[in-house]
């Protein structure tokens, strides 16, 4: 059951992406992206990342894609424009993409997933499993995290056990806590980044007043 749902979401994601890449009509390309985003959100939920899934919907579906569609709608006759590039470079691109895909596959199947397991006597040990015969990577186990802590122990000592979120299902509490502790600095710098983007967007997109309008504005405000 779980597997079937996973593959359904996977198919939606990949199918949407394929339509986006190959559609002749830019509107269909933009619109099928909606399905890709939905599929990805579904996959996130299957990986127990509920907060991420909803944020994905909010940001990509509610924000970015609607702007894309907005742009498409405001451009007249854009639906008739063939957006694909010439066929010659398509073959080259295809071969390169396949090559990259092969490399990534090789990298994926050659990578070990490690996680800690409690053995019968209560001691934790690092278990390594290879992707080729690994259990589902989407089954929501905290994959490398514990193993990483184990690996860092010899050099830096055991981490301070400040608190544990045992028992709380879902990730929103954990993410919220991390934003204000471990990732405080990036979190705050992002706010500067967003302010910069806002400022820049208004500076670039705003209509420039003519000289007379400017003069009037100055005389009024003084």
């Amino acid at each position, binding site marked *: 059951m779980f597997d079937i749902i996973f593959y359904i979401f996977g198919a939606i994601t990949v199918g949407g992406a394929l339509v986006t890449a190959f559609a002749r009509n830019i509107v269909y390309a933009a*619109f099928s992206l909606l399905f890709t985003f939905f599929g990805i959100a579904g996959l996130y939920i299957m990986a127990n990342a509920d907060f991420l899934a*909803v944020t994905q*919907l*909010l940001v990509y*579906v509610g924000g970015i894609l*609607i702007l894309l569609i*907005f742009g*498409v709608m405001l451009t007249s006759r854009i639906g008739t424009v063939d957006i694909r590039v010439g066929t010659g470079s398509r073959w080259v691109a295809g071969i390169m993409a396949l090559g990259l895909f092969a490399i990534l596959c090789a990298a994926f199947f050659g990578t070990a997933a490690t996680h800690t397991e409690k053995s019968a006597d209560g001691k934790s040990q690092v278990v390594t499993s290879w992707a080729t015969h690994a259990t589902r990577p989407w089954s929501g186990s905290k994959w490398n995290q514990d193993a990483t802590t184990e690996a860092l122990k010899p050099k830096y000592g055991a981490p301070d056990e400040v608190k544990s979120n045992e028992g709380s299902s*879902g990730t*929103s509490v954990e993410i919220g806590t991390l934003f204000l502790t471990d990732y405080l600095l990036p979190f705050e710098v992002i706010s500067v980044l967003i302010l910069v983007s806002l400022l820049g967007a208004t500076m670039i997109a705003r209509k420039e007043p003519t000289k007379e309008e400017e003069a009037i504005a100055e005389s009024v405000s003084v």
Partner: protein
Amino acid sequence: MVVEALIKIVIVLLTVLTAVSYLVLLERWISAWLQDRIGPNRTGPLGLFQPLADVLKLLLKEDIEPSQSEKWIHWLAPVISITVAFSVLAIIPFGSAIILSGKSYSLAIASNVNIGVLYIIALTSVGVYGITLAGWSSGSKYSLLGGLRSSAQMISYELTLGLGLVSVVMLCGTLDLGGIIQSQIAGGWNIIRAPLGFMLFLISSFAETNRQPFDLPEAEPELVGGYHTEYSSMKFALFFLAEYANMITASAVMSVLFLGGWHVPFLNTLGMDPSLLAVLGILAFGLKIFAFIFFFMWVRWSIPRFRYDQLMNLGWKVLLPLGIINIVITALEKTYLLH
């Protein structure tokens, strides 16, 4: 588990669909009452079979597809609208858990959703697509203008909606709707704790459901019918359905977030039977939803429509700053008053 969920889904959908058809009748009655008319009273006793007749009429009408339309998207747009409208219902707790033969059943299709509030905002943002795409795919300028207006309006007011929600989340400390109700039972309804947040949420709900005075996407005098000008028959019915379903979900969400959901103050002090309490709770919830819906309709038939620039000014220059101020107020209140 799955069977239980399916049964709940069927019950909720049937209830809401019936409610929607009678809401149309109610709306016509209220409009008649406000305009000193009689309203529909011919079909069946007191006009109670009117919804049935309406549905039959819509089903039997010819489905006209404009020649300039994008067939696929034209067909898909109403489906998106209605799906989104119903999806929100999945996490609404309609009452406290009831105990039947020793087993506890929660009265929400999906209970204890950790990210309930975010789920609502996410779905609201998806809801824009139905109207926008309907407007675009019809191949008519009136529809396109309606679609554009709707997306601009909904995106703008989504911000205020979210900011209004933030105060609730701050006060209750959880995103789970059940948890929000529990917190209100313990600490008082949010309408008292965050009145400004409630106002913001209420106003943006009007905008998000495209109801008067924010019904610019379908403003008849300017845009004929807005985004659904080119829709007919069952597809039109779906949009109609979605609008009323949206009204129900918005009312339900507001009841949960600000009016304590199924909670009735002081009722549990009377020492009543728990199952009776649960039933009373469901009834109270229904009553709250009805009150909101009545308010929606009341406003629709008494207040004129905004001009477009007024709408945008209100959203960006008044409500958004108020929303941010509200967060500060709530933070101060939470830090100094409630501890």
